[in-house]
């Protein structure tokens, strides 16, 4: 026992040396090492994705940053973006969750076709989305002309139009996330609730909804991030008017032509928001490779 205690200080540096490269680890490193035809393009791809983001930080006008960000036009754009993206997310949830439920649970003809069509805004160029929205809700649009004639109510080029454009592009994110969770959920919990006396509405609000809450939260965060970054449909359908329709991405685009430093500062804000979103979703996307596929497909 005494010898062991004496021997310890001598053994320690050796242990520290060996601990750095234990045999099991070097073996796994050999297996995990990528051959160069893969490693080189992989490194280039990573660099390609990260360099532009890094350059935003490197070239940011740090000294004039407080000034640029407190500029009234910036404050207006930021406030408008946060407000419209939040309202759009709420609208997406109010209408998207019932749609997701219908796609996952209800039986009606053309359900799988509808499911495919609902995802179109995901792949559609946003500008095309803006044009289509004009065709429906514009002053001469199918629905918009009625609104104009009967109520004297016009949507295009207003803050409402911004929200509608954002809702249009962002809703599929929420619908897909919630629909995936609903399809994967064990419906026998709903049976159990029914035997306890819960009618279908109660079952939905007390059992189904709470059980898919994580998927709803993840869908809402994605939805909000997409709405915040919306550009193409917004500029087409809502225009680019300071205070009413000029959201952050539009302000960045405009600033790029007159004041590049300001554009970089605004971009930095949006980058920060993206990182916050990523952190908010880390449980779903970083840790496990399986959960996000279950949630989104």
């Amino acid at each position, binding site marked *: 026992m005494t010898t062991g205690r004496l021997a310890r200080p001598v053994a320690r540096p050796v242990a520290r040396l060996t601990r750095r490269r234990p045999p099991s680890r070097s073996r796994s490193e050999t297996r995990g090492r990528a051959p160069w035809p893969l490693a080189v393009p992989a490194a280039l791809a990573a660099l390609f994705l990260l360099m532009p983001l890094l350059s935003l930080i490197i070239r940011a006008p740090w000294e004039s940053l407080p000034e640029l960000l407190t500029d009234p036009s910036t404050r207006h754009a930021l406030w408008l973006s946060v407000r419209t993206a939040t309202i759009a997310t709420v609208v997406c949830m109010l209408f998207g969750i019932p749609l997701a439920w219908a796609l996952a649970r209800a039986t009606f003809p053309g359900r799988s076709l509808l499911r495919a069509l609902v995802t179109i805004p995901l792949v559609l160029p946003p500008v095309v989305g803006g044009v289509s929205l004009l065709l429906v809700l514009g002053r001469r649009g199918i629905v918009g002309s009625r609104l104009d004639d009967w109520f004297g109510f016009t949507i295009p080029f207003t803050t409402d139009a911004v929200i509608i454009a954002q809702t249009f592009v962002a809703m599929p994110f929420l619908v897909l996330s919630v629909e995936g969770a609903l399809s994967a959920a064990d419906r026998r919990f709903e049976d159990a*609730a029914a*035997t306890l*006396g819960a009618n279908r509405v109660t079952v939905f609000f007390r059992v189904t909804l709470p059980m898919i809450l994580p998927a709803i939260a993840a869908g809402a965060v994605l939805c909000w991030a997409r709405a915040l970054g919306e550009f193409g449909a917004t500029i087409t359908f809502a225009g680019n008017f300071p205070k009413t329709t000029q959201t952050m991405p539009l302000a960045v685009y405009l600033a790029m032509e007159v004041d590049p430093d300001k554009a970089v500062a605004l971009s930095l804000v949006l980058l920060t928001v993206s990182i916050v979103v990523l952190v908010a979703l880390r449980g779903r996307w970083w840790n496990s490779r399986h959960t996000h596929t279950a949630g989104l497909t």
Partner: protein
Amino acid sequence: MIERSDPAALAKAPPGTPRRTGLVARIGIELGTLTLDAELAVEPGRTLAVLGPNGAGKSTLLRALAGLVPLQRGRVELDGAVLDDPAARRFVPPERRGAGYVFQDYLLFPHLTAIDNVAFGPRVRHRVRRAAARAAAREMLDRLGLAEVAHLRPGALSGGQAQRVALARALAPGPGLLLLDEPLAALDAGTRLEVRAEVRALLPTLDVPVVMVTHDPVDALTLADDVAVLERGQVVQRGEPAEVITRPRTSYVARLAGLNLFPGTAAGGVVTLDATAARPVTLPAPPGTADGSVLVALRPSEIGVQLSEPGAAPGIQVLTGPVTSVETLGDQVRVQVASTPATRAEIPARRLANLRLVRGTPVWLTVDEGRWDVYSQGGAAP
């Protein structure tokens, strides 16, 4: 039609109220290749065990009683109220049936604590306030010895605790019918003994019909007042547990009971075992046996095993064939013999040392005439 029972209805009905008729059901459902066609009657305060192999339609039967699966034919009636009758286009949905259902894997709501799981029923069914529902739930949890786990989520409960919470949840709204789907199947052996004892103490205190589905004969024998054996969607036997287990009507029940079961034919006071035409095995029929098909049960331990042909003796039947398997059961040894008909004998382990039986050893089985239990085939009388 179904009156909303108030939480106090869980207590026994006051004296003087007319005797309720309980559950009367005739269930007809086509399920792919399986046709479920079963009649049941359970009086309030009694427990019926539906015993059967996997795939016999047991769970579907229970789901039909709860209203989770609609009937295609038949009728379900509880205390005179019709719950399901496709011919009359009547169907009471599960939330208005007041049937407590304990699921095999419990299905406790993962987002609620144990007490809120139990309070769920009173809250949604009787529309009572959260505090009142919680108070009722706490009482129910106390009654089942679960006060300490009330604040835990289902994930933190042990198997036995989850089972009891599931039972408390089913009982909390004061059900008019209790349905148990393999209530003890998901528990480990030790916990199963413990929970079985608790359920056994609890069941007689409930003044409602209880239907329990199980594939474990021990559950059926210890917890039930009556047993119905369900095979391939049909009730093949029903009766009190002791009768079902001593006079099986199908090879499935005979196997559960550990008995040999032979079909036979009675004619003129003599029973001939079927499939023994070449060397007929005959035994005297007990007095009063009607001519026709009968069943003959034989306990494996009452069969003698010899290595050579015994001399003919009156009052002893002999079967012969090679041994097909030898298996120890504690101090007994089970010997399967490919005689006509195939027979299972049990001998003491020390006797095996003398006989040295292996697969293929030819043996002669001797049975004392009085050991055969002959009874009529009779349909599954209700």
